[in-house]
């Protein structure tokens, strides 16, 4: 039983990061109906920027670790959001009226471009976050070991997701985003500036991805230029699992995917872990063709 709960917490920690990245996919999809395949690379950029800022600015000497990390997170999120907005401007906006598959190829191109840009700037070797920014102690909860860092990250991602949920559901801009997701034309007629909504979505989504990148760097230490591909695919799976376009769906999907992976590894086979996750996904989609929380509307083209 102890092992079960340990595995559950392992899965939750992995899932929380998937969920953060999945939010970026799902928000963009909701408004533009575009799978932003470059989103995983924005995540990578976040973790590399975090490393650069961390090692070059020496924030923790001036402000102490807690404030330094918060400041760092704010800077990384801001910078990645700018990259995201630029990406939208150059690679997606010209294709807004084009067939959807063309935009997908553009997204794949952007993914390759960013991945190699990171490689050229930082080198092909893996990079490592300096140790000792955050205390390396573990909390013992009834026999379950939880590193403090992991606990903090779990807490931070839940906080970010709650904030986003409130933002989307309680503010005017949030309402506009939801309206544009349902019907862009009608939203425009209602006086919503859809271009602005899209811009906001491309600021928030990448910022969350960047935050996830920073978290992975702080938590696991090791980063490399190809990791966005792996995380991106997982997060995309999570977004679909929850029902793409649906924000709570992405959160649920991400956490569920993390838990499925941990449980699959623990009780079936480690080597088959990813295959198990995909089999579960396919089974869920057979029963619920639009994901767990996806709306079941017939898509009329």
């Amino acid at each position, binding site marked *: 039983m102890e092992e079960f709960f340990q595995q559950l917490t392992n899965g939750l920690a992995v899932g929380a990061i998937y969920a953060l990245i999945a939010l970026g996919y799902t928000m963009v999809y909701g408004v533009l109906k575009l799978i932003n395949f470059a989103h995983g690379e924005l995540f990578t950029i976040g973790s590399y920027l975090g490393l650069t800022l961390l090692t070059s600015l020496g924030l923790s000497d001036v402000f102490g670790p807690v404030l330094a990390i918060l400041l760092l997170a704010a800077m990384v999120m801001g910078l990645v959001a700018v990259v995201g907005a630029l990406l939208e401007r150059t690679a997606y906006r010209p294709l807004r009226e084009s067939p959807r598959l063309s935009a997908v190829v553009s997204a*794949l*191109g952007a993914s390759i*471009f960013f991945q190699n840009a990171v490689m050229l700037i930082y080198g092909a070797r893996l990079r490592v976050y300096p140790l000792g920014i955050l205390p390396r102690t573990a909390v013992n909860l009834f026999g379950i070991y939880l590193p403090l860092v992991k606990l903090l990250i779990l807490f931070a991602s839940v906080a970010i997701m709650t904030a986003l949920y409130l933002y989307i559901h309680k503010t005017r801009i949030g309402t506009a985003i939801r309206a544009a997701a349902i019907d862009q034309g009608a939203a425009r007629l209602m006086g919503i500036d859809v271009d602005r909504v899209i811009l906001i979505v491309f600021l928030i989504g990448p910022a969350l991805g960047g935050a996830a990148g920073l978290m992975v760097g702080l938590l696991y230490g090791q980063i490399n230029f190809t990791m966005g591909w792996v995380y991106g695919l997982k997060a995309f799976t999570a977004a679909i699992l929850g029902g793409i376009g649906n924000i709570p769906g992405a959160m649920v999907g991400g956490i569920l995917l993390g838990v499925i992976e941990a449980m699959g590894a623990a009780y079936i086979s480690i080597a088959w872990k990813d295959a198990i996750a*995909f089999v579960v996904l396919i089974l869920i989609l057979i029963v619920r063709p639009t994901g767990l929380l996806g709306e079941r509307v017939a898509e009329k083209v």
Partner: protein
Amino acid sequence: MRDHSKIIYSTMTVLLAMSPLFLNKYWVDVLNNVGLYAILGLSLNIIVGHAGLFNLGHAAFYAVGAYTAAIFNTRFNIPVLWLLPLCALSAGLFAAIVMRPIIHLRGDYLCIVTIGLGEIVRIALINDIFGITQGANGIFGIDRPSIFGISIRRPHEFFYLIWGFVAVSVFFFHRLENSRFGRALNYLREDEVAAEGSGINVAHYKLACFVIGAAWAGMVGDIFASKMTIISPESFSFWESVLLFTLILLGGSASIPGVILGAFLIVGLPEVFRGIANARMLIFGGAMIAMMIFRTEGILPSRPRRYVLPDESSGESRA
């Protein structure tokens, strides 16, 4: 206009057929890779281009064909070219079985499911499923193909085998897209509900096009296996499926010349850019974005169907 393009195409064909005479082994082998990608592209084109279905897991079907060839050749010593029908059958059957329950999924849901299938197949191959795929090592010692007792070994010999197969594929897919079947696929791509309303059994047609595409990819798998003599799971990664998908949309979806051009671009460009070594994939990614912005429909998009009406006045109709 049409005559013009006919001249261009026939000159290109002749030039291509002669190319082994003046190219060295290396470039001929590059052309062989282009040929393999062209056939794979054509087989995927029926799914992505004509039916408009989002398939990012085509490498799975290709892998099933390649492994069928490898297993039967190394265990039972059946010559690889005789295995072509069997590879087509196994890949087609595999597609029919796995796609059956999920064929009704829409757009992006189908996309992730095909990605998932590709990954499941790859992981299964790595984990030596049923003890026949030999895990990450892959299967080695596959025979080279032979025609009438002549063994095909060198790139120049493979060139004629592969490009002969390209010619057969072009013929087959050209006939297919102009058939009743091809028109039905186009219809369901443009408007699924209307197609259903006009009496097209949408699920049936979607499944059929997956089976045909998969079977054709399975045959390419056979040739690939015999060319490499060793196959391993890493040759059938998600990246491979992404390349195939990209080449179709770069060249021109639902257009045979477009797909072949796409194969040249996707294999050729990185080779040409080898001079700039590290930045070559960066440029490649940038080029993908630029091409989509400036040629949204691909470089050689498919033309609307033209039909000459019986009463001499020519008319156009869009499928």
